[in-house]
């Protein structure tokens, strides 16, 4: 019998929130070493908070987070990132007064990645030709879609051991969303485990190996896209038109 492979990321009994209140109430979640897990659920129930707690921007109140065998719950974001867990945050957070290329280079900041930055740049420009065209442009002047590609590209400048991506389709026109998801599909196919938060169910079917539903600070259920699609209550409440 082949042993079940260790998940790359595991969250057990996680409670977290802001200023004493709890947004996450006992999260149980596992991300396999080569899967793309999509997290869906109503707005404001904790999807972004979960990613921010995993990446270290928010301190957990209770519970544990294990990444590649190490306990990272409570560690600072800089340390978590150093371990290879890359978080592409909601709203892009690109550096506004730098050029596209400088932003991408920041993605390769850790010393080992920095030494390989030329190759990484080439790969990202390959994946996102629009960025290559605008490499010297100030990011202040980019469109929403270009900024999204930049944020994603920046997250790819390192050999991430796992990627956290928060709402890549937020605020984008459908045509642009397709480009973004095509890139995500390529990354996923390349073997990098991804934990993806998404509001828009329409695009995830292509990339999701599994789907988890987060509601009221807890994981309601997990399953494949097909299984969830067939669940009538979920479909009605959370998923809209399929």
């Amino acid at each position, binding site marked *: 019998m082949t042993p079940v492979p260790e998940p790359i990321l595991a969250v057990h009994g996680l409670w977290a929130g802001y200023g004493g209140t709890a947004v996450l109430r006992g999260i149980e979640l596992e991300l396999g070493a080569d899967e793309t897990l999509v997290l869906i659920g109503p707005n404001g129930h904790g999807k972004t908070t979960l990613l921010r707690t995993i990446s270290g921007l928010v301190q957990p109140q209770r519970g544990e987070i294990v990444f590649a065998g190490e306990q990272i719950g409570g560690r*600072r974001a*800089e340390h978590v*990132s150093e371990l290879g867990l890359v978080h592409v*945050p909601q709203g892009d*957070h690109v550096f506004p007064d730098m050029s596209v290329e400088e932003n991408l280079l*920041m993605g390769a*900041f850790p010393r080992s990645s920095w030494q390989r930055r030329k190759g990484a740049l080439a790969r990202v420009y390959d994946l996102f030709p629009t960025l290559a065209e605008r490499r010297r442009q100030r990011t202040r002047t980019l469109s929403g879609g270009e900024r999204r590609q930049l944020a994603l590209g920046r997250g790819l400048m390192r050999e991430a051991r796992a990627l956290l991506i928060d709402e890549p389709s937020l605020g984008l026109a459908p045509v642009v969303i397709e480009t973004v998801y095509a890139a995500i599909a390529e990354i996923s196919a390349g073997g990098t485990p991804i934990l993806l938060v998404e509001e828009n169910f329409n695009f995830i079917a292509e990339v999701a190996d599994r789907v988890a539903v987060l509601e009221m600070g807890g994981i309601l259920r997990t399953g494949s896209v097909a299984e969830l699609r067939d669940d009538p209550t979920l479909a009605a409440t959370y998923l809209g038109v399929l």
Partner: protein
Amino acid sequence: MTDLVAILVSGVILGSVYALVAIGMTLVYGILRVLDMSQGSMVMAGGFAGWAVLTSWGLNPLVALLFAFAITFGLGVATQLVSVQPLLGRTGVDFEMITFITTFAVATVIQNVALEVFGPRQKDVPPIIGGTVNIYHGVSISMQSILMAIVSIAIIGLLGAFIARSRYGVAIRAVAQDLDAARLMAVPVRGMFPIVMGFASALAGVAGVFLGALYFASPTTGELPLLIALIVVIFGGLGSLLGTIYAAYAIGLIQSSVSVEIGTQWAFPVLYAVILAVLVVRPQGLAGRPSEARL
């Protein structure tokens, strides 16, 4: 015409030194969001460090600069650890206002300690280079002043290149523009903060050695540079390196023109009046962004 030359020369020299002191302040604000009110006392400390080396130990004058740099670097790191680091991330407090006050308290302590240790009397700091140069009819500058301007410009130039090109330079800019994003890129911000503040203080320390020779060293010599740095930094737009440099030279020129044409004691009141006018008309300073000044 003589007047004009005198004004230009004096203004450029003053401006270069002001830039050296103020650039540290703007750097610290950009990265830590702290208005470092201890910067003036670092100038004073540098002056004393220079005095100690140049009078008591009779070593190579350049050692004075290095020594002042080292001492004030250490002081700057200590200041950050005591007056800023404990306040990072605290809720319920206005971070900028309270660090304004705590760094000010550090300045008071440093000044008081200097008073106890060195006494209130002014100490003469010998110049690193002696002699003067005659530029134009009757307008002469001391070699020391020329050295001061050259060193200041050189340091600022190197700093600018470092920030624009190097790996840490980009990281510093990243931290100034979006702290959380920089943390997600594994930038070691916690270690960066004390070092940046140490470096900023060290720049002021170096300026202090020069200013000490130009005037003197005494525990109160930090107050004026602090005021000027504050004026330069806000006039130039908080956080903007280029704006600070322009503002430093502008202030230097204003000061020298008023001093030459009207009288030295009018320099500051005129400056304040100009500041008041500028702040009312252009609330973000010369190079700051409007969003920083308004809502």
